[in-house]
């Protein structure tokens, strides 16, 4: 059982180490929502770390492929659904001040009740959405 989870455990540990490096190195929380918002604040010197972080994040995929690994990516081809989902995630994470990384990993790691409640809420909403889509029998 645990053997089957080795990729998940290694990946999760790397995510935890990356977040730790950013915190201990420059005192920043590795939240993707904050990184995204920083893109629009490029004039502010104190936001520049986000560009470097984003560059590393985006380069991980070509590096991973270059090392000879494959990364499956199975995504819906329904463009309307993709657009609606992107808008909801962009809007929701902005007003909720975080997503899976900022609230889920760093927030819970900091023992923030606010982040724990946000994480439970978006998990439940995600689970309910998938359940409703199943019930709709492919309409959604």
């Amino acid at each position: 059982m645990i053997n089957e989870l080795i990729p998940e455990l290694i990946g999760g540990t790397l995510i935890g180490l990356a977040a730790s490096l950013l915190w201990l190195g420059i005192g920043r929380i590795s939240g993707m929502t904050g990184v995204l918002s920083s893109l629009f604040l490029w004039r502010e010197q104190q936001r520049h770390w986000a560009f470097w972080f984003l560059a590393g994040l985006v380069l991980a995929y070509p590096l991973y492929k270059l090392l000879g690994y494959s990364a499956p990516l199975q995504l819906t081809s329904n463009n309307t659904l993709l657009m609606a989902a992107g808008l909801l995630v962009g809007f929701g994470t902005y007003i909720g001040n975080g997503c899976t990384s900022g609230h889920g990993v760093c927030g819970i790691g900091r023992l923030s009740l606010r982040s724990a409640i946000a994480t439970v809420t978006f998990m439940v909403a995600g689970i309910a959405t998938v359940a409703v889509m199943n019930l709709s029998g492919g309409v959604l």
Partner: protein
Amino acid sequence: MSARILSPLVALASGLIFGLGLLISGMNDPAKVRAFLDVFAAWDPSLIAVMGSAIPVFAVFFYFGKRRKAPLCATTFHEPQLTRIDRRLLTGAVMFGIGWGLVGLCPGPALVNLLAFEPGVLIFVLALLAGNRIAHWVVGPAK
């Protein structure tokens, strides 16, 4: 080396390691994420192991950092100051969760998949940026 040179390198390395973690764990794959959220049918709980390892690792280093006055390559720790649990937080989390469930992408994995050059990922990321800006103009930053 000075902090001026080191801090961008720290951010770059952190982003790269974060991205590799998402790829190795399979968290970048929308189908795997949707299977994780599919609790009542074809549930694949394996992604619990990603959160279950990332959170304690960060928690240990975060509390180790609490003993320091400043980070290694900067002058201050920027810990989030918001603690309020209000309608704004919950509305945002519900909207995010719905979008996440619809296609199986959250911001980190979407950005990691950008250079896979999948048209669907690009559409999602453009909508993600648009949603972020619409919220900024309509609602504004949290105080």
